[in-house]
């Protein structure tokens, strides 16, 4: 029977710890960007900030999948240790490992499925994924505390199909292949290589007008800003700003495009409103993301636009015609489409 290999387990464990650490930190950032606590301000620069942090979140999660399997492989015989529980201390240690493995699989599996917009479960994904992340990282810290002395374990002679070096090479290769196969969803030059990437088009649509229940928008449409109203022609007659800004989805894909429209702060000034947190409402009747709150820092940014045009052409209905919010460095679900009103709160 093959024995476990503490030396190898510690090496793979370090890589896995780095992947989980990156994933946890970027996950907390994404959570704060979407539900900002009072003391927190998500920066508006660089414009790709959220694109980068959320890309790292999904890529490090994908990298953790082969690392978790490799890590379990290095300790496989210990998973079937008898007696199941020897002492209180032993019970606590094994219990913490069960919590760690359960929570780690939960995070990676639900994250992978959610990135594919595939939800084969009954619970609501975001709060469950967020809560279990704390459990996983907590159990990971306890595990490191318990196992820290083994870091210095000397390598023992190994009896296995792969040598220790071969095992690390295969694990590293699996991480590289997993990342290459998926990262094209956010890294433009990998798009053709990443055969398992979620994004296929240069600029995808995450929620179509049909899915949102938004049909033809007629001439009667008006944008309400405080007490003022603007028709589409009036908006188009205002000074326009063009900017290259990314849509960066919480599910990891991102894509840049050239947006043209009126800066939100100009509209607030025309309506005589001070810059503050701005409530942005959509024509969409219901749905989790039919409205968003634009933080004051974003509202004041000259690149935060109500876009009327995309890559030089009028905004397509699926991208939010007659106008949509596009702000630098924001989660995609908060870039509200089919905007009807701006209200300073």
């Amino acid at each position, binding site marked *: 029977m093959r024995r476990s290999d503490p030396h190898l387990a510690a090496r793979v464990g370090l890589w896995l710890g780095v992947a989980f650490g990156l994933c946890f930190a970027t996950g907390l950032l994404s959570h704060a960007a979407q539900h900002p606590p009072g003391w927190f301000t998500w920066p508006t620069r660089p414009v790709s900030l959220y694109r980068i942090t959320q890309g790292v979140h999904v890529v490090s999660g994908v990298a953790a*999948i082969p690392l978790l*399997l490799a890590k379990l492989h290095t300790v496989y015989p210990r998973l079937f240790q008898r007696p199941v529980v020897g002492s209180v201390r032993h019970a606590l240690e094994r219990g913490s490992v069960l919590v760690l493995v359960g929570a*780690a699989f*939960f995070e990676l599996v639900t994250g992978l499925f959610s990135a594919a917009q595939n939800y084969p479960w*009954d619970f609501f994904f975001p709060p*469950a994924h967020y809560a279990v992340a704390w459990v996983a990282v907590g159990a990971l810290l306890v595990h490191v*505390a318990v196992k820290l002395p083994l870091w210095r374990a000397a390598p023992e002679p190994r009896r296995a199909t792969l040598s220790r070096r071969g095992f690390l*090479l*295969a694990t590293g290769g699996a991480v590289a292949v997993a990342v290459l196969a998926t990262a094209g969803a956010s890294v433009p030059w990998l798009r053709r290589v990443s055969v398992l990437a979620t994004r296929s088009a240069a600029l995808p649509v995450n929620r179509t007008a049909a899915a949102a229940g938004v049909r033809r928008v007629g001439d009667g449409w008006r944008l309400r800003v405080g007490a003022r109203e603007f028709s589409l022609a009036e908006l188009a007659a205002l000074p326009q700003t063009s900017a290259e800004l990314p849509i960066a989805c919480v599910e990891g894909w991102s894509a840049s495009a050239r947006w043209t429209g009126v800066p939100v702060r100009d509209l607030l000034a025309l309506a005589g409103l001070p810059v503050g947190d701005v409530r942005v409402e959509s024509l969409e009747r219901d749905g989790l993301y039919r409205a968003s709150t634009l933080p004051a820092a974003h509202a004041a940014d000259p690149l935060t636009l109500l876009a009327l045009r995309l890559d030089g052409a009028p905004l397509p209905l699926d991208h939010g015609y007659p106008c949509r919010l596009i702000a630098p460095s924001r989660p995609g679900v908060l870039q509200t489409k089919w905007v009807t009103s701006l209200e300073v709160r």
Partner: protein
Amino acid sequence: MTRLVLGAIGVAFGLWGVFLLLPQDLPAIGLWLLAGPVVHDALVAPLVGGIGLLVGRGLPRPWRGPVAAAAVLTGVLGLLAVPLLWRPFAGPANPGLLDRPYWAGLLAAVGLVWATALVVGAVRHVSRPRPGG
């Protein structure tokens, strides 16, 4: 000391996570929390162990490393493809998302992996040390 502090922070994080879980759908979440270890220990690990044994006992030495590595990569690519190929619970289709030819992509990637393993194995086979050579 370091270990005590690490452990205490870990316990605090874990309790915070449990507190956040309390108002949520605990039976459904609990099922998915247990599913990972059970499926791994009962299905994935024995499968990997069995294939490892077959490769280790059944193949000549120069071929073992490349074939084992290719089997690992095939498994990882296959796992990553599951949410893209098995979609009875997926949301409505969106233009430009999740509409690549995933079967073809998976086959191409796996084919490339095994072609590389064949080349590496053949090179190692030819350049292996021979008795009395």
